[in-house]
């Protein structure tokens, strides 16, 4: 079966975010960009399913500006088979991303779609659930274990109270949580090979999808800073301060 993974280009998780002075967003010029870490886990899971002989082909899809090619190349270097870039300079919100992915999926017919549970930039945690709704497919979000057999996926999910296991009919959408796997590093030969793997480019218009944002960002601000940094010298002093100064115990 074919697997489709979606990979988002985001500000690298190690970069300290700076809010723009005009409050229109965060600074992205000359900032290191990487694949969303949860999407790396999605790529890795697809690779493991291919190594287990369950998945035959892995398609990595990214949506956004031309540089999203680099994010796709990263997935190809991890050893995905080919890429699709839905290219646009316009802002894409999760509902639009889900609609665009649906259009790609209707062309490619994958039986399993794996994506990160959330992107570390907008922290929305929506796209996978929206995509499965639009396709009328089942969803297994926040996956920490995936087993495929007999046209179903048995997925263990990380939930607030612990773990929950569901069995869903394929085709389905699975979103990844942190403990699903540890993504591999691309090997040098695979990085070289990735350069020759095909990436098809499409546009929202060609896919017939209206990707207009439904949310207007009025402003982006920095949160209030905490005044910290005070040290105490001993456990006795700590307990005393918590009792008499902070009055929290």
């Amino acid at each position, binding site marked *: 079966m074919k697997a489709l993974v979606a990979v988002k280009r985001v500000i690298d998780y190690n970069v300290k975010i700076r809010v723009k002075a005009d409050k229109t967003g965060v600074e992205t010029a000359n900032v290191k960009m990487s694949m969303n870490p949860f999407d790396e886990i999605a790529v890795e899971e697809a690779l493991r399913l291919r190594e287990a002989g369950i998945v035959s082909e892995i398609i990595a899809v990214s949506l956004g500006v031309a540089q999203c090619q680099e994010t796709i190349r990263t997935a190809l270097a991890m050893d995905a088979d080919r890429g699709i870039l839905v290219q646009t300079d316009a802002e894409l919100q999760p509902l639009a991303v889900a609609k665009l992915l649906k259009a790609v999926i209707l062309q490619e017919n994958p039986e399993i779609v794996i994506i990160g549970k959330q992107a570390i930039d907008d922290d929305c945690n929506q796209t996978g659930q929206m995509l499965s*709704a639009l396709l009328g497919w089942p969803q297994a979000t926040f996956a920490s274990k995936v087993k495929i057999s007999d046209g179903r996926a048995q997925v263990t999910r990380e939930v607030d109270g612990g773990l929950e296991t569901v069995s869903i009919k394929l085709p389905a959408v699975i979103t990844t949580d942190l403990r699903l796997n540890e993504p591999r590093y691309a090997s040098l030969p695979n990085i070289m090979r990735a350069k020759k793997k095909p990436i098809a480019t499409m546009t929202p218009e060609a896919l017939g999808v209206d990707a207009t944002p439904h949310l207007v960002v009025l402003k982006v601000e920095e949160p209030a800073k905490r005044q910290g*940094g005070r040290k105490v010298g001993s456990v006795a002093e700590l307990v005393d301060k918590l009792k008499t100064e902070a009055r929290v115990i």
Partner: protein
Amino acid sequence: MAALVVAEHDNRALRPATLNAVAAASEIAAPEVDILVAGKDCRSVAEAAAKIAGARKVLLADDAAYEHALAENVAPLVVGLAQNYSHLLATATTSGKNLMPRVAAMLDVMQISDISAVVSPDTFVRPIYAGNALATVQSKDPIKVVTARGTAFPPVEATGGTAAIEPVQTTGTTGLSEFVGAELSKSERPELTSARIVISGGRGMQSGDNFHLLEKVADKLGAAVGASRAAVDAGFVPNDYQVGQTGKIVAPELYIAVGISGAIQHLAGMKDSKVIVAINKDEEAPIFQIADYGLVGDLFKILPELADELERHQ
């Protein structure tokens, strides 16, 4: 304007997270706040929901299809009720996060995720980039689907309301998914996201066994026990302990971080706590920059000492 809150429960009792969503809904649409209880044999939950302060009406959807809150089955129910409401809300727990985007997509609207403030009925503040920026967003959709950050909306009173319970037409099962089982952590301690005091351990704890040192302190304080991602990834404690950007968001009166360096993604989950204490042997650890009280030293010496000191003060 009217808001519908999707209640969280286990078919026997209401989960406290529901009270946070009702608080957010009340800011938007009071007094027109209804609560949906979808489950199996869950009348007692509906009765509890009817007592929530500010509830106008409780909609009860009782059907085997809703027993395990599978999003595939619950979403069509919520969508069917949506026409009567301007806002649909849930708390941004794993359950709310699982369900609400599915509802939003079926309604062809964007969800406004994890809001931390209501500016007006169509404008909300939400943290982005692990809380390192706050975005104010305005929704242009006819129905606003919203998940609310629990810590940003103090719970409404669980009692005092006298809402009527109305049964609603159920939508049955889609047959797309099945519940197989759950392994839920059992603990006598308070629940992490609603505890007044939280004590969390990080990689510095070195092993899961060492968490008993934290637990001793937690028991003296009546605190919940949490962990950093590093400690969960290392297998010291289960996933439901994780505090952070992609784990649980907590904002207790007192947060004690032990052996936690203070990665951005961890700070995102706890920096709104009222008082933060950091215990770490590395005095350069970033956690100290946001801590109200920092104590530099060996946690294996400090924790037993802290438990003794608290004992003395009791």
